[in-house]
């Protein structure tokens, strides 16, 4: 057996795993009957269907030739994710301004042509914009900076 379509192989596995996962967790809920469906009924059916579709895709990957897996460049992905998570961690604790500054400064590093000067200007500009538009303009209730 040789994998002819690696994209399908992995996509199939992913769908099987998620489908089975939903079916397993759904067993904690009452199934009910076809007449009176419990909370577990529809998720079990759908989870099974997803796993079945995943199996078809998985099976196809041995039969039909497909494209090779594309390269995953993990650096930008990870940097952007770190930026987003830092924003989440800071917005309530330190406030909107530090959160935006951190998000912009960190995530901008993910670009190949990253430059400090313009990024700092951008971060300050965006933070000012966010305060003006979201805090003053739309009146959303944020803490702006530590101790605000």
């Amino acid at each position, binding site marked *: 057996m040789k994998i002819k379509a690696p994209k399908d192989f992995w*996509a199939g596995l992913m769908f099987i795993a998620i489908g089975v996962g939903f079916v397993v967790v759904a067993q904690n809920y009452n199934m009910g009957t076809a007449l009176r*469906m419990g909370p577990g009924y*529809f998720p079990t059916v759908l989870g099974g269907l997803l796993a079945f*579709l995943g199996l078809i*895709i998985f099976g196809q990957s041995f039969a039909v030739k497909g494209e090779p897996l594309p390269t995953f460049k993990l650096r930008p992905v990870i940097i952007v994710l770190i930026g987003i998570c830092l924003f*989440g961690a800071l917005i309530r604790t330190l406030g909107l301004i530090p959160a935006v500054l951190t998000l912009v400064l960190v995530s901008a590093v993910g670009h190949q042509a990253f430059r400090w000067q313009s990024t700092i200007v951008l971060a300050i500009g965006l933070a000012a914009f*966010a305060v003006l538009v*979201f805090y003053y303009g739309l009146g959303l209730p944020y803490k702006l900076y530590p101790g605000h």
Partner: protein
Amino acid sequence: MELFSNLALGIGVAFTLDNLLYCFVGVLLGTLIGVLPGLGPTATIAMLLPITFTLPPVAALIMLAGIYYGSQYGGSTTAILVNLPGEAASVVTAIDGYKLARQGRAGPALGIAAIGSFFAGCVATVVIGVFAPPLADLALKFGPAEYFSLMVLGLMAAVVLAHGPFVKALAMVVLGLLLGLVGTDVNSGVPRFNFDIPEIAEHIDFVVVAMGLFGIAEIVANLERSEKRDVAIAKVGRILPTKEDFVLCWPSVLRGTALGSVLGILPGGGSLLASFAAYTLEKKMATPPHKFGEGDIRGVAGPESANNAGAQTSFIPLLTLGIPSNSVMALMIGAMILKGIVPGPMVMTERPDLFWGMIASMWVGNLMLVVLNLPLIGIWIRLLTVPYRLLYPAILMFCCIGVYSINNTEFNVYLMALFGVLGYVCVKLECEPAPLILGFILGPMMEEYLRRAMLLSRGDPMVFIEKPISAAMLGIAVLLMLSIALPAIRSKRKEAFQEA
């Protein structure tokens, strides 16, 4: 005539100073973001949704509709000027539009796109006004069985008409349905799949899913590619098309409008299908001499008219049946639910101001697009030169503040990042994320209708086949599925999407 009194009501709503302003801001923001490369209408709407949170429902929907066609027009502008279609529907516009720009005729191409879109928008507004009421009347007679079958048909059609591998698209729909079920079960009050996380005890917020799948995933994918965007921007020149252009184009505009209006109504249709079909039609129908692919202005006029007509008539299934026909409409449904409006046939009778106000505002919005875009094109072009390294941190900021503001919980920010990863992986594995969002919106509704139908039929699943309307819809869904299995049709479908 009822149509006129209804439209008069709508115009009364749309022409209040506030709503005109929201429409204007929507169109302006939509164009602004749509012009930025790498951001399609779905991502644009997801990103700008939070700014409508504080608005009243009518104003919010008018603004979102404005953002939608604004972003489409913005997408066409970049397609013509720099060969970078901002969204899938303007891929075909780029074929001849960019060639025209290289020949120094960018101005007329942009002009005819605006004028064709405006004409198509006017016609589509009337089409909605005429066809929506009878369809809503019909939908009022639907029971739970019919609704369930309609949703099956809608999802199936969306999958068949989407591009990309069929089984994977189907799997993405089912995944969306499952994710839609996360949260409290309305019937029993049992919390499902939430692992005791209070933030998703009720349900996962669709804005989080949409921003993750479309916004974050797109940014990450763009960052992977090495930047090669210092493209020479063509000179625009005079914008008004010549008399010869008009004579050449008006049949294309008419054909595009007609085709787009019809295809927009279909589930899974909308602007994307409309513009591809219109380009193919133009190639077949246009009178010689043909210069398609080398800068034929009809290759811009037809698809641009069609995609605007399709964009608008795709509101028909949304407003009458409560069924989204594409991912943008799924976002609109989500926005309506956020505002406490249940999408469906009742909207027209219970909230006529909202229904007709929105329709009238589409016409106003289209007029604004023409008035706004022709003089502002210089600014849009300048925006194109903003480097991506400065652009994406700004987009990220909008996404983060947006999802945080839904409930003021940082959990949504983390969840968005997670959906960003899912979207990124899916795109890598050739799984389109658009069907997922459709399933996500319809998941809870489908379960509810299935339960009610089965309860009414005393547990007999034959009810879906015994009711004629339901049976017909399921029959069409099966036919659609079989049609994709036929090699001849499959290759045709592939061909249609590879036209570009």
